[in-house]
């Protein structure tokens, strides 16, 4: 999303954008547009399907003791899924949490891979994978040398910035080649 904004801001109709970078951008856009797709709606329960109970122990109650237990347990009768929440001291809050957890669990039970929770997890996994892939690629290019880095960093948000940073990197690479002892450089390559 932010990338599209950058793209529109930096393109006035007269500037020439190289075709290669455009295609690359569109590739990243398609990956991001996945996140824009709406998730399947949250599950709504019929009250008759739920058994909400406040867990209280045995023994005397009322004024005689002052229990701080505010746990709420919800049973979804059709699937038999049981959810318990003791997140806060408030029963009504706990009930809200328990309902949310239950909605996710029941949905996973009913829809499997197509459920809200599964899709969310899948997206998070993909995002992480793509992030790691990019990071790996970046460091691979860095190790390769100045030409590769500059090319790679054109992918960045701003051309000028990308060029500057590329130059900096080139400079640092040069300094590394000259100044840094061989042992350190070797370790850098390994990493």
């Amino acid at each position: 999303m932010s990338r599209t904004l950058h793209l529109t801001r930096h393109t006035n109709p007269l500037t020439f954008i190289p075709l290669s970078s455009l295609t690359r951008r569109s590739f990243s856009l398609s990956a991001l547009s996945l996140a824009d797709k709406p998730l399947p709606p949250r599950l709504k329960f019929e009250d008759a399907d739920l058994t909400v109970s406040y867990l209280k122990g045995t023994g005397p109650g009322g004024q005689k003791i002052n229990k701080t237990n505010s746990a709420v347990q919800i049973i979804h009768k059709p699937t038999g899924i049981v959810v318990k929440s003791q997140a806060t001291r408030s029963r009504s809050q706990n009930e809200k949490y328990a309902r949310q957890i239950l909605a996710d669990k029941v949905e996973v039970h009913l829809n499997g891979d197509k459920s809200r929770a599964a899709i969310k997890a899948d997206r998070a996994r993909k995002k992480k994978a793509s992030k790691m892939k990019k990071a790996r690629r970046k460091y691979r290019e860095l190790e390769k040398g100045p030409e590769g880095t500059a090319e790679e960093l054109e992918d960045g948000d701003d051309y000028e910035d990308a060029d500057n940073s590329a130059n900096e990197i080139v400079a640092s690479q040069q300094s590394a080649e000259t100044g840094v002892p061989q042992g350190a450089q070797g370790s850098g390559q390994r990493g």
Partner: protein
Amino acid sequence: MPRLSTPTILRAYQQDPLLPLLLRECRTIDSARNELRWLRQHALDLIIQNEPHHPEAPQPTSPAPNPPRKNAAIRKGWRRTLREFCHARSRGTPLQYLLGDQPFGDLTILCKRGVLIPRNDTETFTYAAASQILQHASKDNKLKPNTTTANNPITTPPQSPLRILDLCTGTGCIALLLHTLLSRAYRTNPNPRPLKILGLDNNPLALRLAYRNLMHNLALRTLPPSAPSDIEFHLADVLSTAATNPDKTPTQKVPSIETLLQRIPAFCPPSTPDSSQEKTNGARVDVIISNPPYISARALVDGTTARSVRVYEPLAALVPPLSLSGGLEGGRAEDVFYARIVGLVKEVGARMVLLECGDYAQGERVVQLCRLMVVGPEAGMGREWEVKIWEEDEGSDRDVEGSKEGACLVVLKRVGSQ
């Protein structure tokens, strides 16, 4: 109370060195961990509140409240505060007095030493009471228009308010939660019935706290804006009757319920000698709800009452005064309040009474008391009134064990239109 096993204590210590302290009061690791979490949060919150000189502290409007919070917590000794809390808790100080409040429904009820902490059971019963009142009121409305429109079709539009009397209100929790629940239910109604709730207590400290709770929840927006005009808290002695009052009036500053009701306009009997209102003449209150002190002097010391409650909560809110028989010959001392309240029913013309009782044995005694004083001895005659111990409807789904041990709610209602 069974001893804590050494493995349990060791396991708790491994998780957190403070847990064994909390274990003394909580008895299970799970609940101790919960309390530790809440206490830690409170300790952190206190640190931030106590830094007025810090420029970031009093301005929570800054876009990122988390970083300053963390910094402040690290700078000051919240750990020490937490350790003090845990030691206090291990000596039995109620968690609510340490944290300063207790959630009650959607409300947050402030708690202070000297006033009884609202219980979970009372919360459940207040929800039950609200639904009972709504049911009853809707039935009444179905019955009423037929009779009233037949007699006088002109004077029906101004709806009479639903007047609720909350006796022994303490923190005011029942009165306040009832107001939210009822006004929420009436909001969908095109012609909502006005509410008038009166909370009475004989302890000025409790009344002050009740007012603070009213304002606190108003600020939190958990109470509707109409609450301050609908709810009043007043000083009154529930046990002193009108009969005993005249001799004491010079010395006694705390008025009885009868004398107090005459001072409050909404609860005064209607003076219009109307033909339709003749039957309900003197009806000053529609619903009486109460969670009076109900622990017997023996139950206080025989181990059924928790140490924390016995030592730290006000005795006057737990055990009824022993010196008064409450006009109940042969009755138990712990039932004094019930005798007085049930005796009040006909006098103020209440149509519904909801009483929290300590256990089912006491509940049964109160039911008997209601039969004796209000319903009448014969079942055939008992058409006008109905009395029972309230049960949660889905009885089969609930955990059945121990349900007969805890507190219960006695519901007395007028079912006939008479």
